[in-house]
C-alpha cells in the first residue's frame, strides 16, 4: 500500500477533548450513559437516548466488525470509508487501513489503531484483526 497522505485533523472542543486526548495515547473511548446504560457514538455530554447528563467515558474494546464500506477510487491513494459496528454496539464512521483488497468485506472483524492526522492529532482507524 502506498504511503497515505495525512488525514485532515478534527477541530477539538471542550465537549470532545477527552476523546481526542485519549486517541493521542492510543486509547479509543466511547460514551456510556449511567442512567439508561446505553453506549453511543459520536460522544455527547447529554445521552441521545434518555437525555440524561450522566454520561461517562469508557475505554472501548477497540474491536468491531465492518458494517458497511466503500473504496473511494478517485483519491490517491484510494481510501476505504467504513462504518464499523463497535463491540460496545454503536456504529462508528472510520477508515480501514492496511487491508488486503481481496479480503475486504462486510462482516470482517477489525481492530482499532491510530493514524497521524495533521496538527499532530492521532485519529482512530481500523485494520483487519
Amino acid at each position, binding site marked *: 500500500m502506498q504511503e497515505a497522505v495525512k488525514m*485532515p485533523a478534527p477541530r477539538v472542543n471542550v465537549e470532545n477533548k477527552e476523546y481526542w486526548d485519549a486517541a493521542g495515547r492510543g486509547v479509543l473511548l466511547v460514551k456510556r450513559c449511567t442512567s439508561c446504560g446505553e453506549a453511543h457514538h459520536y460522544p455527547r455530554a447529554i445521552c441521545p437516548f434518555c437525555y440524561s447528563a450522566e454520561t461517562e467515558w469508557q475505554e472501548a474494546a477497540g474491536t468491531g466488525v465492518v*458494517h458497511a464500506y466503500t473504496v473511494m477510487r478517485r483519491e490517491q491513494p484510494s481510501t476505504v470509508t467504513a462504518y464499523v459496528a463497535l463491540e460496545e454496539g454503536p*456504529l462508528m464512521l472510520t477508515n480501514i487501513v492496511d487491508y488486503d483488497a481481496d479480503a475486504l468485506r462486510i462482516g470482517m472483524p477489525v481492530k482499532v489503531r491510530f493514524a497521524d492526522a495533521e496538527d499532530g492529532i492521532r485519529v482512530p482507524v481500523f485494520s483487519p484483526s
Partner: protein
Amino acid sequence: MSIRGKAYIAGIYEHPTRKAPDKSLTQLHAEVAAGAVADAGLTMADVDGFFCDNDAPGLGPISMVEYMGLNVGHVDTTETGGSAPIVHISHAAQAIAAGKCSVALITLAGRPRSAGVSANPAPNWDVPELPFEFPYRSSVLNQYAMVAMRHMHEYGTTSEQLAWVKVAASHHAQHNPHAMLRDLVSVEDVLHSPMIADPLHRLDCCVVSDGGGAIVVVCPEIAKTLSRPLVKVRGAGEAIRDLRGGKANILESGGARSGAIAFDEAGVKPADIKYASLYDSFTITVVVQLEDLGFCEKGKGGRFVADGGLISGVGRLPVNTDGGGLCNNHPGNRGGMTKVLEAVRQLRGEAHPAVQVPGCDLAVAHGTGGWLASRHGSATVILERE
C-alpha cells in the same frame, strides 16, 4: 388541522440552462421566480409569501426579498438540503391554510457547474458530528455508496439492478430537449463506467448542473380564478433520519416516516399513485426510497427497478420522466425542486407525449436531502389533479 385541499400548485418553471457562466446566482433565482409567476398567470406583485433555502444568498430570505422587490408578509427558509423545496410546499400550504399568505413563491437556484463548487460544504466546527467524520473524508459520495454496499450485502441487490435506474432515466431524458445527458444508456454502459465509490459507478451518480426552478402555491380561491389545470396539495410529510447515537438502521431512510405521514394525510396508498418523482442523487437513492415509501417490500427495490421497471409506459411505476437528476438536471446540487416540477407537468398532462402517463391524476414527489447513510431530511408531497 390538515393541509389536504387547502392549497394548489398554480405555477411552475424550470430554468432551461444547465450551465450559466453568464448569470449570477440571484439572477437565476429571479428568472425562475418570474417564470413560475407568469406560468400561474399572476404577477410578482401578487406574491405575499416567500420560501427559499440556503442556496439563496444572504441572511435567510432577506437579500432575495430585497433583490426581487417582493412585498411579503410570510417567509420560511427551512433547510433540509435537496428535499427543502418539497418541505416548502408543505409549509406554504400550512401558511395558506392558516391565512398567513395566499400566493407563496418557492425558488431554488445554483451554479455549481460554473462555480466549480462541490456538494461538500466547508467545515463549520460547531456541527457536533464533524470532528468525528471530517478526518475520514466523509462525503456525499461515500455516505450513499455505503448504503448501496450494505443493501447488496443484506438483500442481494446487484449493480445491474441499480443500473436500471439510470437506464430508465436515460430513456426519459432522450425526449427532454433541455436534459444535460440525452443519450440512451444501457446496463452495460453503467457497469463499464469508472468505479467512483464501490459499488457506485460514474453513471450511478447524478449530474452537476447550473439552473433552478420555482413553484407558486396558492389558496383555493385564487387557484380557481386562474386558467391553469388545478393541481391540489393532498398530503405532505417530513422527517429527519439520523444515526441515533450509532444505532440507526442505515438502510432505512426518513422516507419511511415522511411517506407514511403524507399518505395518511392524503388518504391514499402507494398503489393509487400513477407517477412518482423520486430523488435520484444516486441510483441507490431511488431504490431505498421506493421501499421506504411502500412501493415494494424492504429489500425488494432492486427487483422493482430491474428490467425497465421505472420506464414510463412499460414499467411497474413511471419515475422521473424528465430524466431526473441522473440525466436531466440537478441544479445547485439539490434535486427536490425538479422532482415537484415534473410531477406537476404529469398531473397537468404537460409532460412530453412520449413519457406522459395517461390519466395521471395522483402523483408523489419525494426527496432525500443530505447524506443517506448518516443523516438527512426526507420530504414527501402527494399531489392530485382535480
